[in-house]
Protein backbone atom coordinates (compact mmCIF):
# COMPACT_ATOMS: atom_id res chain seq x y z
CA UNK A 1 0.00 0.00 0.00
CA UNK A 2 1.03 3.58 -0.49
CA UNK A 3 2.30 5.71 2.34
CA UNK A 4 3.51 9.25 2.61
CA UNK A 5 6.06 10.40 5.15
CA UNK A 6 6.64 13.99 6.09
CA UNK A 7 9.10 15.33 8.63
CA UNK A 8 9.72 16.91 11.00
CA UNK A 9 6.33 17.13 12.69
CA UNK A 10 7.17 20.41 14.39
CA UNK A 11 9.91 22.93 13.83
CA UNK A 12 10.83 26.20 15.50
CA UNK A 13 13.28 28.32 13.56
CA UNK A 14 14.63 31.87 13.98
CA UNK A 15 14.01 34.49 11.33
CA UNK A 16 16.72 34.38 8.69
CA UNK A 17 17.60 30.73 9.18
CA UNK A 18 17.32 28.14 6.37
CA UNK A 19 14.57 25.59 6.02
CA UNK A 20 14.33 22.09 4.63
CA UNK A 21 11.19 19.99 4.89
CA UNK A 22 11.19 16.58 3.34
CA UNK A 23 8.42 14.39 2.02
CA UNK A 24 8.68 10.88 0.61
CA UNK A 25 6.10 8.58 -0.87
CA UNK A 26 6.25 4.80 -0.87
CA UNK A 27 4.34 2.17 -2.77
CA UNK A 28 3.70 4.09 -5.97
CA UNK A 29 5.63 5.42 -8.92
CA UNK A 30 5.50 8.67 -10.85
CA UNK A 31 3.15 10.40 -8.42
CA UNK A 32 2.14 14.02 -8.68
CA UNK A 33 3.50 15.77 -5.59
CA UNK A 34 2.27 18.90 -3.86
CA UNK A 35 3.20 21.28 -1.07
CA UNK A 36 0.35 23.11 0.64
CA UNK A 37 0.48 25.64 3.43
CA UNK A 38 -2.25 26.15 5.96
CA UNK A 39 -2.06 29.49 7.72
CA UNK A 40 -4.42 30.32 10.53
CA UNK A 41 -7.81 31.37 9.19
CA UNK A 42 -6.68 31.16 5.59
CA UNK A 43 -7.37 27.61 4.56
CA UNK A 44 -5.06 25.58 2.38
CA UNK A 45 -2.90 27.29 -0.19
CA UNK A 46 -1.14 25.36 -2.93
CA UNK A 47 2.53 26.37 -2.99
CA UNK A 48 4.19 23.98 -5.43
CA UNK A 49 3.36 20.94 -7.45
CA UNK A 50 5.48 18.53 -9.44
CA UNK A 51 4.59 16.04 -12.14
CA UNK A 52 8.06 14.52 -12.40
CA UNK A 53 11.69 14.60 -11.34
CA UNK A 54 13.09 18.10 -11.62
CA UNK A 55 9.72 19.53 -12.73
CA UNK A 56 8.43 22.12 -10.29
CA UNK A 57 5.60 24.57 -10.74
CA UNK A 58 5.14 27.45 -8.35
CA UNK A 59 1.66 28.68 -7.63
CA UNK A 60 2.47 31.81 -5.67
CA UNK A 61 5.54 34.05 -5.50
CA UNK A 62 7.20 33.68 -2.14
CA UNK A 63 10.29 33.09 -0.09
CA UNK A 64 10.19 29.33 -0.56
CA UNK A 65 11.39 26.89 -3.19
CA UNK A 66 10.80 23.23 -3.92
CA UNK A 67 12.84 20.46 -5.46
CA UNK A 68 12.21 16.91 -6.57
CA UNK A 69 15.54 15.11 -6.74
CA UNK A 70 13.96 11.66 -6.93
CA UNK A 71 10.66 10.32 -8.19
CA UNK A 72 9.15 9.96 -4.74
CA UNK A 73 10.94 12.71 -2.86
CA UNK A 74 9.76 16.29 -2.56
CA UNK A 75 11.64 18.95 -0.60
CA UNK A 76 10.49 22.38 0.51
CA UNK A 77 13.27 24.87 1.21
CA UNK A 78 14.09 28.41 2.11
CA UNK A 79 17.44 30.20 2.34
CA UNK A 80 16.17 32.75 4.86
CA UNK A 81 12.92 32.30 6.73
CA UNK A 82 10.52 35.16 7.32
CA UNK A 83 7.98 35.52 10.11
CA UNK A 84 5.25 35.16 7.52
CA UNK A 85 6.50 31.67 6.65
CA UNK A 86 5.00 30.32 9.85
CA UNK A 87 2.21 27.84 9.27
CA UNK A 88 1.25 24.23 8.87
CA UNK A 89 2.83 22.66 5.80
CA UNK A 90 1.29 19.66 4.17
CA UNK A 91 2.80 17.42 1.54
CA UNK A 92 0.44 15.46 -0.68
CA UNK A 93 0.51 13.11 -3.62
CA UNK A 94 -1.93 11.95 -6.23
CA UNK A 95 -1.76 9.28 -8.91
CA UNK A 96 -0.03 10.32 -12.11
CA UNK A 97 -1.72 12.36 -14.76
CA UNK A 98 -3.30 9.40 -16.41
CA UNK A 99 -5.10 8.32 -13.28
CA UNK A 100 -5.57 11.44 -11.24
CA UNK A 101 -9.30 11.51 -11.72
CA UNK A 102 -9.68 8.89 -9.07
CA UNK A 103 -10.06 12.05 -7.06
CA UNK A 104 -7.65 11.04 -4.39
CA UNK A 105 -5.18 13.46 -2.95
CA UNK A 106 -3.28 11.78 -0.14
CA UNK A 107 -1.86 14.02 2.53
CA UNK A 108 1.02 13.65 4.92
CA UNK A 109 0.58 14.42 8.59
CA UNK A 110 2.03 17.90 8.26
CA UNK A 111 4.79 20.05 9.73
CA UNK A 112 3.98 22.87 12.11
CA UNK A 113 6.56 25.57 11.43
CA UNK A 114 6.99 28.46 13.83
CA UNK A 115 9.34 31.23 12.79
CA UNK A 116 10.36 33.43 15.73
Amino acid at each position, binding site marked *: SQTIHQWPATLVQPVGSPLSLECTVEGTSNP*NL*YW*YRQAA*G*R*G*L*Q*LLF*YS*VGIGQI*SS*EVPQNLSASRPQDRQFILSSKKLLLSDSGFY*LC*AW*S*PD*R*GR*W*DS*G*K*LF*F*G*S*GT*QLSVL
Partner: protein
Amino acid sequence: AQSVTQPDIHITVSEGASLELRCNYSYGATPYLFWYVQSPGQGLQLLLKYFSGDTLVQGIKGFEAEFKRSQSSFNLRKPSVHWSDAAEYFCAVGSYGSSNTGKLIFGQGTTLQVKP
Protein backbone atom coordinates in the same frame (compact mmCIF):
# COMPACT_ATOMS: atom_id res chain seq x y z
CA ALA B 1 -10.03 31.61 -12.17
CA GLN B 2 -11.23 28.78 -10.02
CA SER B 3 -12.17 29.55 -6.45
CA VAL B 4 -13.98 28.00 -3.53
CA THR B 5 -15.86 29.82 -0.81
CA GLN B 6 -16.93 28.37 2.49
CA PRO B 7 -19.08 31.12 4.02
CA ASP B 8 -19.10 29.72 7.54
CA ILE B 9 -15.76 29.88 9.32
CA HIS B 10 -17.07 28.29 12.52
CA ILE B 11 -20.20 26.24 13.24
CA THR B 12 -21.41 24.78 16.52
CA VAL B 13 -24.07 22.08 16.63
CA SER B 14 -25.39 19.81 19.35
CA GLU B 15 -24.63 16.14 19.25
CA GLY B 16 -27.41 14.33 17.41
CA ALA B 17 -28.47 17.41 15.48
CA SER B 18 -28.28 17.64 11.71
CA LEU B 19 -25.43 19.44 9.97
CA GLU B 20 -24.98 21.34 6.74
CA LEU B 21 -21.70 22.93 5.72
CA ARG B 22 -21.88 25.28 2.79
CA CYS B 23 -19.55 25.42 -0.19
CA ASN B 24 -19.76 27.58 -3.29
CA TYR B 25 -17.37 27.31 -6.19
CA SER B 26 -16.41 29.24 -9.27
CA TYR B 27 -15.24 27.16 -12.20
CA GLY B 28 -15.48 27.53 -15.95
CA ALA B 29 -16.29 23.93 -16.77
CA THR B 30 -17.79 20.92 -15.06
CA PRO B 31 -15.99 20.84 -11.74
CA TYR B 32 -14.51 18.01 -9.82
CA LEU B 33 -15.61 18.68 -6.23
CA PHE B 34 -14.34 17.27 -2.97
CA TRP B 35 -14.86 17.46 0.76
CA TYR B 36 -11.97 16.75 3.13
CA VAL B 37 -11.87 16.55 6.91
CA GLN B 38 -8.89 17.47 9.05
CA SER B 39 -8.60 16.42 12.68
CA PRO B 40 -6.41 18.60 14.93
CA GLY B 41 -2.73 18.40 14.01
CA GLN B 42 -3.39 15.87 11.27
CA GLY B 43 -3.40 15.71 7.52
CA LEU B 44 -6.56 15.64 5.46
CA GLN B 45 -8.86 12.73 4.78
CA LEU B 46 -11.15 12.55 1.77
CA LEU B 47 -14.83 12.36 2.76
CA LEU B 48 -16.42 12.26 -0.67
CA LYS B 49 -16.08 13.49 -4.23
CA TYR B 50 -18.25 14.41 -7.19
CA PHE B 51 -17.19 14.02 -10.80
CA SER B 52 -20.39 13.38 -12.72
CA GLY B 53 -23.67 11.49 -12.60
CA ASP B 54 -25.92 11.44 -9.57
CA THR B 55 -25.76 14.85 -7.93
CA LEU B 56 -26.18 13.40 -4.45
CA VAL B 57 -23.01 11.62 -3.41
CA GLN B 58 -22.43 9.49 -0.37
CA GLY B 59 -19.20 9.51 1.55
CA ILE B 60 -17.57 7.97 4.56
CA LYS B 61 -18.64 8.49 8.16
CA GLY B 62 -22.28 9.03 7.17
CA PHE B 63 -21.68 12.23 5.21
CA GLU B 64 -23.31 13.16 1.94
CA ALA B 65 -23.12 16.14 -0.38
CA GLU B 66 -25.33 17.51 -3.12
CA PHE B 67 -24.05 19.17 -6.27
CA LYS B 68 -26.30 21.97 -7.48
CA ARG B 69 -25.03 23.42 -10.72
CA SER B 70 -27.59 26.24 -10.79
CA GLN B 71 -26.37 27.45 -7.41
CA SER B 72 -22.70 26.57 -7.91
CA SER B 73 -22.87 24.79 -4.60
CA PHE B 74 -21.68 21.53 -3.09
CA ASN B 75 -22.97 21.49 0.47
CA LEU B 76 -21.99 18.78 2.92
CA ARG B 77 -24.64 17.23 5.14
CA LYS B 78 -25.00 14.74 7.93
CA PRO B 79 -28.34 13.78 9.52
CA SER B 80 -26.99 13.25 13.03
CA VAL B 81 -23.67 14.62 14.22
CA HIS B 82 -21.41 12.70 16.58
CA TRP B 83 -18.91 14.26 18.96
CA SER B 84 -16.10 12.67 16.93
CA ASP B 85 -17.13 14.77 13.93
CA ALA B 86 -15.61 17.86 15.52
CA ALA B 87 -12.87 18.87 13.08
CA GLU B 88 -12.12 21.27 10.27
CA TYR B 89 -13.79 20.64 6.94
CA PHE B 90 -12.50 21.75 3.58
CA CYS B 91 -14.30 21.95 0.28
CA ALA B 92 -12.12 21.78 -2.83
CA VAL B 93 -12.45 22.03 -6.59
CA GLY B 94 -10.24 20.10 -8.94
CA SER B 95 -8.28 21.94 -11.61
CA TYR B 96 -8.01 19.44 -14.41
CA GLY B 97 -6.29 21.52 -17.00
CA SER B 98 -4.23 20.69 -20.03
CA SER B 99 -1.32 19.61 -17.86
CA ASN B 100 -3.55 17.15 -16.03
CA THR B 101 -1.83 17.93 -12.81
CA GLY B 102 -4.78 17.35 -10.57
CA LYS B 103 -4.32 20.49 -8.52
CA LEU B 104 -6.95 21.15 -5.92
CA ILE B 105 -8.12 24.61 -4.92
CA PHE B 106 -9.34 24.62 -1.33
CA GLY B 107 -11.80 26.77 0.52
CA GLN B 108 -10.79 28.43 3.75
CA GLY B 109 -12.34 25.70 5.84
CA THR B 110 -15.15 25.46 8.36
CA THR B 111 -14.41 24.50 11.94
CA LEU B 112 -17.11 22.30 13.40
CA GLN B 113 -17.63 22.22 17.13
CA VAL B 114 -20.00 19.65 18.63
CA LYS B 115 -21.74 20.35 21.93
CA PRO B 116 -22.63 17.41 24.17
